[in-house]
């Protein structure tokens, strides 16, 4: 450990390298991420028209409109266009939540079961590495290709694999799974589970491996069966990592974009699949010659607020309780010491 004096000397001679080495990161971050973030917040309070073109309310990107965009999205507007934005936002928000719930809970149940099996001391399991490799594989495949793959498997076309199979067996009309309200949502939930369960499983496995092995051995010696071991040892000790997974998955779920955006043919996005991220993208980009920056930016700000709350929760869950307890004790000790000093000083006078 360096003493205070040593540290001071070091900081005199080498501090500039600290700034030098971190400078590229911060410069690029401020230009390409922080400035756009600020822009988004600013644009949320400006109108939707661009250049000469004005939006329905007669405002453009140069007109300050206060909280009008937020009002339009959250409460609804007076004219046809802004009412559309309100309805879309709530429909897409609902879709996001439905798809997230429908993919997260089955996924975490499956991943947890697999993680417990893979780490079970009692079951000898040759080929464990193979299973892990296979189950993680869907996660690395390009989302665009996955959407295309499932479109060719269960799409509406009468030549999709499923429809060919069924029609060869006497079905008259091809199934329209990819455009139906619930069937398309179920397909997307399935795709999300298919892509992510391997990832969640490996994360939970490293969580379980972090649990002291002697606890499992003790449980086995005491005659606990697998169910008891799971509910009395694994699950309680895994709670933190589960909450972490839950929250990060919620943040990820709010950003869900690729599959819902791409699971369609033609140019019209499936209304039952579109998520909040699709709303943002659609409003400012799809029609990039005359974008509605205002609505997009307002929706981004709403998304940012929700994400920040969830992110803060992640830190709160992840916080090091022992270290915080120690810091609290230290603060109290310092306070106590100062109080004593003061009192002592008082007496001496």
């Amino acid at each position, binding site marked *: 450990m360096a003493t205070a004096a040593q540290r001071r000397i070091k900081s005199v001679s080498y501090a500039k390298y600290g700034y030098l080495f971190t400078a590229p990161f911060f410069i690029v971050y401020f230009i390409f991420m922080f400035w756009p973030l600020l822009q988004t917040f600013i644009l949320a309070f400006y109108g939707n028209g661009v250049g000469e073109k004005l939006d329905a309310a007669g405002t453009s990107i140069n007109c300050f409109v206060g909280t009008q965009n937020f009002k339009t999205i959250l409460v609804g507007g007076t004219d046809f266009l802004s009412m559309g934005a309100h309805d879309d936002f709530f429909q897409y928000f609902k879709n996001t939540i439905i798809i997230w719930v429908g993919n997260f809970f089955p996924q975490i149940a499956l991943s947890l079961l697999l993680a417990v*099996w893979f780490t079970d001391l009692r079951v000898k399991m040759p080929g464990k590495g193979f299973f892990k490799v296979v189950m993680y594989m869907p996660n690395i495949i*390009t989302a665009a290709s996955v959407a295309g793959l499932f479109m060719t498997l269960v799409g509406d076309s009468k030549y999709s694999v499923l429809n060919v199979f069924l029609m060869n067996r006497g079905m008259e009309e091809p199934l329209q799974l990819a455009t139906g309200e619930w069937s398309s949502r179920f397909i997307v939930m399935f795709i999300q589970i298919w892509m992510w369960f391997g990832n969640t499983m490996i994360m939970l496995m490293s969580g379980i491996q972090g649990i002291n092995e002697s606890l499992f051995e003790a449980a086995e010696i005491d005659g606990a069966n697998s169910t008891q071991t799971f509910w009395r040892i694994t699950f309680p000790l895994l709670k933190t990592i589960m909450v972490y997974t839950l929250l990060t998955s919620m943040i990820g779920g709010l950003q869900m974009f690729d599959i819902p955006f791409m699971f369609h043919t033609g140019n019209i996005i499936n209304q039952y699949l579109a998520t909040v991220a699709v709303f943002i993208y659609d409003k400012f980009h799809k029609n990039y010659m005359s974008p509605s920056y205002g609505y997009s930016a307002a929706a981004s700000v709403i998304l940012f607020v929700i994400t920040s709350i969830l992110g803060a929760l992640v830190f709160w869950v992840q916080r090091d309780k022992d270290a915080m307890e120690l810091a609290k004790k230290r603060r109290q000790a310092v306070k106590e010491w100062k109080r004593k000093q003061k009192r002592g000083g008082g007496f001496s006078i």
Partner: protein
Amino acid sequence: MSKKVKYDTDKGGYQTQVLIKSTLIYVVLILLTLICLVPIWILIVNATRTTDEIIKGASLIPGTNLFANINTLNTDMLYNVFYSPLRGMFNSFIIAGSCCALTVFFSGLTAYGIVVYDFKAKGPMFVFILAVMMVPSQVTAVGFMKLLVDWELLDSYVPLILPAIAAPAIVFFMRQYMLSSFPLDIIEAARIDGSSEIRTFLTISIPMMKPAFAVQAIFAFISKWNDYYNQSLVLVSGNKEQLTMPMMVQKVVSIDRTADYGANYAAIFLSIIPVVVVYLVLSKFIIGGVAAGGVKE
């Protein structure tokens, strides 16, 4: 005595129990393996068959039409206006490769700067990195688009590659790695031997942090290869010479008047093959990296 007998039968029961459980586990695992592999296998098989064969019904045995299908992609007007496998792979490779190099190098450099040196802004910098780690790119997209329009950076690779220098999550991972397994004394030793700071970083710290660099490089490459969102933000005019693999595939998927199903499958097949091969070769590192918590999506 009776106790002992009871123990023995118990032991027999225990073993059967374990056997039943293992069998059950294997059945489920094999089922899941099939669910993971069969869609990909059908894709591979159909990419090698003619449209007529595909319309007749699914099969698990590959055909012989793969090269004809790829040829269709290159020659048929329906596809070749936006799909060119070699061009797409080359473009994706340029973007993913440069992003990967920049991300790993500069994240390592930033983490090194924060861990090794003592300076006033060190604490606030780290708190800042922690705070922005979870800001989703969708939130900054509107402002990013405005920036691209204002600075006339649309249809250029610069805004796709340059931001890779700033990857907060990877800096965080590298910092954790350095704190746990990088002895700072070695830097003092290098200083005494007269090595300059940047040389110490390049010739001593990078080789020592190779495992962390390797894992992050693999993930950076794959995630940039797969990144449809940012690429579609920037490459708005859809010029074939510039499009990347995910964008080309998205265009193939959204054609609604498909003529050649074999070619369609081949287009998707060609887009996943490079990633799958890289994955299979490096799977040990990748699984290890996920387990180490080094991946933030």
